[in-house]
């Protein structure tokens, strides 16, 4: 290292603590407190990346989260690798490994740099324009375009780190711990309000904390010293919680905010194990104060993107806060006074400032005279017209500005430098304010957008509110916070402010050049390589809305969301179109303010905690007996139980046969169960089901179909009358919660006069269904005290009984068409009763079966599954279930809709059975059904909803919905598949035992 760029007495850096890190495979050293950016600059490394489109060499531009260029890949080729990390935000730690992105083979020699030379033929919208023809070729182009797109590389392995979410409630949330945020925090906390102060940086005080020149004083103390005392004071306040390294990502309605607290990213790698890396804070604040400061604007001139060109405020921050000089021969380029502060910081440390180029013709501030006294040349009324140096700036040329600022005049002067600080004035950081729904207004004086109308109980203070001078910040903060929090007791009386700077500014959005615009590269969006030329081209091509120009040119669409250049884009648009600023709107700032990792967003909801898992009380038995599981909503249901080498088909065939020939046992605990009580329970069921319920005897069960008000089938299940005013309803597994919600809705809103109470008892009972010709013998052994004779316990009836001392309910109902008993018992006894059934059923070849076999068995009987054979367009008539729709009842939910002009049409899709010509051929569920494949376009008549190979019938069976299907019995239809047409015949949907003899079959 030949140059000495590190200066002592920096605020943040601990020079006794040296840290080594790797950047692009080279080892460098920095100190504790350095960011990756400050450490690289101290090592004279400016070139850190390549730009997105032209692969131009790019350097560090800023010292904060607004950084567009210095975005790097952390820990390449490890599970902790992370793309698009801003070097200006990462604090260095022992073990840090980083590399440049978007370059190959290296940042120094990047093949993609050829795009820079080709740039005249790569205008805005190049891809849209070029790859449109021929249309069908897009797929071929896309492969190559995608390959060259994108910046970093995403990790390929699972994230090894821990993340969590946390809710925080507070009276006042203050975002930003700069001078105004600190003052507001003190006022709020001292008045007894529970206050949370957050800042994205590792330290408090914002940019004022290094405002340590003799020319800036508050109450006769150097501003930074005054602020330090304030910080000391607030850190002792009880009501105040301070969170640093915490970046607010989103500001939603009702003062709900999301912030990311970064807990370990600054620690040495070996100290991170078992610690939470990021915490997503979900903050609900009664009041929010935004004190997010302002972002310095760059200036838009030819070749304004070379490594070594930084914001002037960043140059100041690097020297004052980190003790790092960005160069040995500095030039500053400005249109306002802030660059003179930077110049003072540099000259006071003995660092050469070659010149200041100032757009303004008149400069009249104490500070500017002081700078001049230090032998810095000031070129008034000048502008930079070009810069030189490929991988690092080595010089620039300037020219005089015309009176109107539209042209350059006179002779070109060439100056040398190795660093250029630019300042185009300040843009209030209104991102969070607008995210919350706030409306902006444009202030003509200094060309800034400032908050106008608050959508919630919130306040913007300090420079994000457009108060850019120290006087305005201090005075207005006290006044507005006092009023906003409705407090009287405050320490701040009056402020005596001394400042060396003056507010004057000469704003020119696009600086003129001696070249024509088409020959310049004046970058507006550095990250996405959008230039002033591109924006003007978009306007010439007819784009007007800022949202359209943005998407066409990609201005502001990078990971930095155009924090630096958006204002210039707006300015250039309004100048070119001859409209007022803000007339075309501003682009919408969307969350997150700075990118969040996916880990932060998902928190603990990963792996087995991704979603809630519901298991039945018998689950462990299924696991122990080799069940494969199927997800049904959140439930894990046993799908099938393969034996040794069986595949799914073989297992299901075996289970299905056993259920019809011997006995089967199914865990039906997941079915929804709703307990219904009250004197109007019968009337209630009458209104919600299509069939009649008043006459159902106590101890009997009935199948019911529930419709929506539009007449479409919503849910089905068996309901049992336990007592005069007491029913238990079963619903489908997936529909349970929604059915309960719907029933509650009607009870509370339409029929509040009904005396009915509902409660969900799904989890209270385990349900074991034993079916098949031997089922009666088995359950008789399990419950020996109960009389299972057909006379005493016929089909569709229920008994209260006991197994030992334990009460249970037994229903004789069937979803398979076989004789079948459902034992409902308190959940914690479920597994033991199941095992008892298995034990007693051993001699009868009792066979556990899963949902797949259940589906097959019911399909043989033509029983529907709501949601599989129906969608929200099937009426009971469409399902050929007219028998369940009461003609006598005056009303029930959906009744009126059953004879709307649309629902009575003959050619609605209707449920039918389908038999394949070749009985071995099983149809694919979802396959289309047609009548004529020769006519084009082929008319789609419907689709297959359920399809199985039935081992009991020895043939393929299917259910499907077909237009006008009811009248098509016996007709031939075609299922066109990819490589063949399958011939089918429309059949009755009941394939097996239409008479229902098996329900009472005796062996």
């Amino acid at each position: 290292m030949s140059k000495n760029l590190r200066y002592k007495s920096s605020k943040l850096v601990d020079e006794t603590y040296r840290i080594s890190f790797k950047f692009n495979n080279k080892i460098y050293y920095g100190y504790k407190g350095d960011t990756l950016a400050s450490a690289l600059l101290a090592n004279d490394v400016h070139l850190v990346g390549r730009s997105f489109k032209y692969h131009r060499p790019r350097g560090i531009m800023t010292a904060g989260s607004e950084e567009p260029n210095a975005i790097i890949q952390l820990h390449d080729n490890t599970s902790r690798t992370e793309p698009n990390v801003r070097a200006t935000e990462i604090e260095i730690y022992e073990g840090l490994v980083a590399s440049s992105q978007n370059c190959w083979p290296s940042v120094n020699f990047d093949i993609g740099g050829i795009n820079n030379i080709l740039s005249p033929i790569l205008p805005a919208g190049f891809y849209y324009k070029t790859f449109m023809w021929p249309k069908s070729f897009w797929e071929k182009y896309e492969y190559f375009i995608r390959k060259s797109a994108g910046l970093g590389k995403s990790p390929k392995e699972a994230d090894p780190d821990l993340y969590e979410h946390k809710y925080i409630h507070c009276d006042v949330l203050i975002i930003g711990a700069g001078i105004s945020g600190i003052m507001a925090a003190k006022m709020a906390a001292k008045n007894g309000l529970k206050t949370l102060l957050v800042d994205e940086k590792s330290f408090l005080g914002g940019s004022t904390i290094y405002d340590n020149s003799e020319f800036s004083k508050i109450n006769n103390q150097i501003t930074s010293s005054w602020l330090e005392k304030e910080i000391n004071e607030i850190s002792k306040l009880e009501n105040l919680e301070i969170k640093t390294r915490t970046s607010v990502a989103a500001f939603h309605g009702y003062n709900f905010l999301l912030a990311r607290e970064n807990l370990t990213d600054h620690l040495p790698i070996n100290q991170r194990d078992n610690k939470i890396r990021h915490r997503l804070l979900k903050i609900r604040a009664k009041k929010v104060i935004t004190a997010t400061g302002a972002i310095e604007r760059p200036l838009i001139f030819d070749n304004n993107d070379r490594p070594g060109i930084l914001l002037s405020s960043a140059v100041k921050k690097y020297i004052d806060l980190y003790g790092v000089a960005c160069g040995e021969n500095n030039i500053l380029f400005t249109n306002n006074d802030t660059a003179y502060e930077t110049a003072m910081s540099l000259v006071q440390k003995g660092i050469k400032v070659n010149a200041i180029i100032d757009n303004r013709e008149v400069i009249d501030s104490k500070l500017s005279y002081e700078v001049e006294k230090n032998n810095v040349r000031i070129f008034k009324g000048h502008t930079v017209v070009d810069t030189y140096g490929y991988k690092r700036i080595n010089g620039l040329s300037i020219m005089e500005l015309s009176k109107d600022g539209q042209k350059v005049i006179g002779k070109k002067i060439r100056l040398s430098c190795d660093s250029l600080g630019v300042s185009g004035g300040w843009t209030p950081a209104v991102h969070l304010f607008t995210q919350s729904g706030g409306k902006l207004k444009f202030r003509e004086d200094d060309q800034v957008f400032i908050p106008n109308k608050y959508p919630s109980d919130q306040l913007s203070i300090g420079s994000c509110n457009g108060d850019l001078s120290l006087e305005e910040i201090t005075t207005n903060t006290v006044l507005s916070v006092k009023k906003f929090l409705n407090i009287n007791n405050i320490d701040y009386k009056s402020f005596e402010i001394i400042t060396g700077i003056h507010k004057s500014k000469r704003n020119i959005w696009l600086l003129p050049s001696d070249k024509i615009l088409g020959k310049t590269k004046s970058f507006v969006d550095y990250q996405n390589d959008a230039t002033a030329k591109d924006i003007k081209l978009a306007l010439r091509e007819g784009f007007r809305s800022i949202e359209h120009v943005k998407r066409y040119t990609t201005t502001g669409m990078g990971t930095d969301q155009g924090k630096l250049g958006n204002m210039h884009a707006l300015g250039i648009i309004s100048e070119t179109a001859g409209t007022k600023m803000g007339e075309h709107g501003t682009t919408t700032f969307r969350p997150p303010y700075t990118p969040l990792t996916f880990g932060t967003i998902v928190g603990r909801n990963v792996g087995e905690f991704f979603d809630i898992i519901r298991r039945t009380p018998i689950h462990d038995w299924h696991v122990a007996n080799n069940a494969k599981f199927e997800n049904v909503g959140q439930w894990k249901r046993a799908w099938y139980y393969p034996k040794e080498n069986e595949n799914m088909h073989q297992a299901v065939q075996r289970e299905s046969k056993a259920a019809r020939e011997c006995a089967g046992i199914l865990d039906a605990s997941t079915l929804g169960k709703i307990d219904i009580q009250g004197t109007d329970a019968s009337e209630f069921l009458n209104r919600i089901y299509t069939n009649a319920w008043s006459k159902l005897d106590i101890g009997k069960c009935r199948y019911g179909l529930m419709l929506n008000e539009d007449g479409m089938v919503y849910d089905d299940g068996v309901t049992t009358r336990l007592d005069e005013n007491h029913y238990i309803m079963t619903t489908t597994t997936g529909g349970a919660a929604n059915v309960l919600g719907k029933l509650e809705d009607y009870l509370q809103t339409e029929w509040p006069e009904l005396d009915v109470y509902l409660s969900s008892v799904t989890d209270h009972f385990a349900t074991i269904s034993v079916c098949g010709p031997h089922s009666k013998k088995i359950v008789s052994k399990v419950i020996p005290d109960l009389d299972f004779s057909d006379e005493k316990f016929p089909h569709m009836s229920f008994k209260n009984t006991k197994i030992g001392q334990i009460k249970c309910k037994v229903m004789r109902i069937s979803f398979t068409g076989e004789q079948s008993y459902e034992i409902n018992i308190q959940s914690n006894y479920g597994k033991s009763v199941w095992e008892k059934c298995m034990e007693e059923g051993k001699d009868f070849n009792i066979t556990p079966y899963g949902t797949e076999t259940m589906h097959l068995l019911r399909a043989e009987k033509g029983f529907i599954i709501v949601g599989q054979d129906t969608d929200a367009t099937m009426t009971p008539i469409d399902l050929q279930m007219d028998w369940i729709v009461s003609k006598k009842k005056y009303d029930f939910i959906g009744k009126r809709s059953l004879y709307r002009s649309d629902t009575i049409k003959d050619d609605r899709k209707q449920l039918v059975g389908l038999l394949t010509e070749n009985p071995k051929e099983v149809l694919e569920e979802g396959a289309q059904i047609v009548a004529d494949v020769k006519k084009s376009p082929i008319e789609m008549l419907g689709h297959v909803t359920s399809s199985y190979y039935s081992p009991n019938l020895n043939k393929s069976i299917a259910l499907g919905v077909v237009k006008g299907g009811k009248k098509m019995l016996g007709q031939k239809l075609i299922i066109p598949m990819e490589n063949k047409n399958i011939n089918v015949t429309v059949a009755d949907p009941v394939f097996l035992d239409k008479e229902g003899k098996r329900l009472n079959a005796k062996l």
Partner: protein
Amino acid sequence: MFLINCPFCGEREQSEFKAGGEAHIERPKQPTELSDDEWAEFLFMRKNIKGVQFERWNHAHGCRKWFNIARDTSNDQIKAVYKMGEKPPVK
């Protein structure tokens, strides 16, 4: 995310609630007397206004009660919360 003042439980996060569409649409007492058009009016027609809109909400993960709110759809401000059967307190 809204903060909804459930008339039975007090202020709770929106995530505890389910929205239930436009409020004050009464189910006809005698649906069979209605023409197709009249029934369709009840069944399908919903307002979608910019401004104050009356909506049904359910405290699904709380007390399970249904109630009404008056919400300004242009800025999501909830102007009033009131029980089922009550008249909207704001115009």
